[in-house]
């Protein structure tokens, strides 16, 4: 145990950062030799390098986390702040699924899950994760075995079924934070239910960690989380500038720290850096794409495996995604977090996330984003893998058009699995949509 802990600390605090800075030097030298990339995009964000370092370091440390520190597998909407003071190393299977998708590994992993009996109609992240569990195949080297599984139903109920399957596989405790759907405003008994569950979570997590949570440390984590979501919101709001200093597709990648490192100093330091860089770009008039003519909103998860190609086609035609409902979801509830009342305020914040609220609320968010970011059109990714996000999009698209004059496109794909992607059909529809703005 002690030897493992020492190894974990060495990897995460010394060896990892050293390897990352060596890799940074190598990239910088390569970058100088290659010169500036050509294409329809603006100069790449410098912060991306740091983002890669953070992500790589996180997964590198994860390789030797089990047995050294308590390990929790967590859903993206889980109130992870509750686990931080107990020293958990957290793994985000959804984030890992996105990496698998970018690396085009989902079909292989999914087929492995399908051989186990999982249907191809299930969430692509879940299939990728269950395929990874079945085969041990991962693009990040190795995922640490969980001591605790933590899922929160505020993003979907699919995570509940998925984590039940993981719990049966790993034979470890599963904590479910059930956040009942909110119609209008959350009723008091609903909030009480969630905060009671958070207290029950703390008891379970303390048992797994082997010690009691330090309330002062928890309050500090909550403060950091609130600060992190505020900084993330500031980064997103940079997209209001014309031209936008980055693209919505960039923001999908830069979302990783607020999802998986929320409540840490590293996360906040990163977003300070990103925000400052975006503000500098605004001051210089540097855009995310070279020639921004039409500004768009993106609804739903990204199409991870096709992000580069899709963004290139849009950018070549002067279309920039300047805001997305998905990345905005990690900025909207943060102000509700109160370090003086961790459980009560986390209940409020985690219940009031986009996907846990009714369609009138989602429509109001779409309208607000379109107005504030000056989006003239919206691409609704009709995501086969994500039913809660996709049901209602047909009506949302129609209402956004009739009530705000925002033209919409329903683009059918999958956030992780390229087998559900019909390129010719999608690009036909996309080109027809772009012609509307001619």
């Amino acid at each position: 145990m002690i030897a493992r802990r020492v190894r974990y600390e060495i990897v995460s605090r010394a060896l990892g950062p050293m390897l990352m800075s060596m890799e940074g030097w190598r990239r910088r030298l390569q970058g100088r030799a290659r010169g500036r990339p050509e294409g329809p995009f603006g100069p790449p964000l410098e912060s991306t390098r740091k983002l890669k370092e953070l992500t790589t370091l996180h997964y590198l440390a994860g390789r030797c986390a089990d047995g050294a520190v308590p390990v929790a597998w967590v859903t993206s909407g889980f109130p992870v702040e509750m686990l931080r003071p107990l020293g958990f190393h957290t793994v985000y299977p959804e984030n890992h699924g996105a990496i698998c998708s970018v690396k085009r590994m989902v079909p292989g992993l999914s087929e492995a899950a399908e051989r186990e009996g999982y249907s191809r109609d299930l969430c692509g992240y879940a299939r990728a994760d269950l395929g990874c569990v079945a085969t041990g195949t991962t693009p990040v080297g190795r995922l640490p075995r969980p001591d605790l599984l933590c899922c929160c139903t505020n993003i979907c109920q699919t995570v509940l079924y998925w984590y039940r399957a993981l719990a049966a596989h790993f034979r470890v405790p599963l904590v479910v934070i059930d956040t009942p759907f909110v119609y209008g405003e959350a009723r008091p008994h609903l909030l009480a239910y969630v905060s009671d569950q958070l207290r029950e979570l703390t008891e379970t997590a303390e048992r797994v960690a082997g010690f009691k949570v330090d309330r002062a440390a928890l309050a500090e984590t909550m403060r950091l989380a609130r600060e992190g979501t505020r900084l993330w919101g500031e980064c997103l709001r940079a997209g209001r500038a014309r031209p936008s200093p980055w693209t919505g597709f960039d923001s999908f990648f830069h979302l990783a720290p607020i999802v998986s490192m929320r409540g840490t100093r590293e996360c906040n330091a990163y977003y300070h850096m990103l925000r400052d860089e975006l503000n500098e770009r605004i001051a210089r008039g540097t855009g995310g794409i070279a020639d921004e003519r039409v500004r768009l909103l993106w609804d739903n998860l990204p199409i991870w495996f096709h992000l580069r190609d899709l963004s290139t086609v849009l950018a070549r035609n002067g279309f920039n995604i300047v805001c997305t409902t998905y990345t905005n979801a990690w900025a909207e509830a943060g102000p509700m977090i109160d370090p003086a009342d961790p459980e009560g305020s986390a209940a409020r914040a985690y219940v009031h996330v986009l996907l846990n609220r009714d369609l009138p609320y989602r429509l109001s968010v779409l309208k607000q984003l379109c107005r504030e970011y000056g989006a003239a059109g919206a691409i609704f990714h009709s995501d086969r893998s994500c039913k809660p996000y996709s049901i209602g999009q047909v009506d949302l698209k129609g209402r956004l058009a009739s009530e705000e004059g925002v033209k919409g496109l329903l683009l059918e794909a999958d956030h992780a699995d390229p087998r559900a992607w019909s390129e010719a059909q999608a690009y036909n529809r996309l080109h027809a949509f772009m012609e509307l703005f001619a």
Partner: protein
Amino acid sequence: MFVRPALTARDRPCQCIGMRSATISARKMLGRKSVVVLPVHYPRELFTAMDVHTVELWGPPGPPRGPDAGRIQAYACAVVRNALAFLAAGGADAVDAALFPHTCDSIQGLATLAPDFGGWGKPALRYLHPKGGDGPAARAFVRAELVHLAGRLGELTGRPLEVPRLAAAIELHARIDRLRGALLSRRACLGMGDRALYRLLRRGEFLEPEDHLAELADAALGLGEERMQHGVPLMVSGYVPEPMTLFDVLASAGAFVVADDYAAVGRRVPPASLANDGDPIDTLAAKAFAMPPCPTRGGDQDARMEYLEFLYRRSGAAGLIVHVQKFCDPELFDVPAIRRRFARIGAPLLYLEGEMESSLSGRVITRLEAFVEMVDAGRKSP
């Protein structure tokens, strides 16, 4: 006065809807309220106590009809797509409100799509049941949800919930549950065919509880001590037994259903009677945690597998049919675990995926027949 439709009526979708409409009309004539209920779990006792008639909406089967069919993508389950099309086409206009239990993401989505964006203009009630464990937080939440729902029903009916009436409703439904449980668990000793049995059990989805109780009691008179079914005994697990012609195919292939784990049927029968001597709301809350495992309510997957194996062994089934709806996440995520568990105990398993069709395809019929044949051959071989 309620007119009980003949049991011999063919239950093709449109006629099934007709029977439900007739029941609602009868209620209307008496000036009483009716509520259409989406799947699966809800506290029916509360509605009975408030004199509100419930009519469940499982689809209806067949392709979604009407201009609203396309408002939900084709990769959502047919239960939800059909329900939206049906509600928006005015299929349930005779009732006074709709109840949307929080069964899954899709029904949750429908619960805001139809009332907020068109398709359902009458009051929308929601019942949020806990998805996590059964700890104190979940139990307190169920209780609060029941009180809240009672308040909403009070607004609908114009009178508050009366505790003695709730206690009586709990007792009435407990009698219904006991009879349903007896008919299902002692299935082999009942002369009635599967088709008739399921028609009877599913009439509980729309009949007045008293009428359903009377029919169940009549049927229970046919329960004997001797085994009356001599075909190949099978267990079924899934969402809803649609199309019901499934049972005709099984019967003609020489099989019968000896154990049931359909969400619409067996999973809504508590395994044991609950004490009804304290606060009726507490009794009702306790019932929510005493039901057979159902993935739509979360809970431990291993516990569900234990239960399914127990049901299988207790019933003496010789094979399992897993009959799920396409795109139904709660059911689909458990399928690998069911496969593993039943492979381990050497139980033959047939996996069927449906989309609320009105009839079975020739391919599915052939698969069912071949499965029954294989199971039968396995039983006969030493």
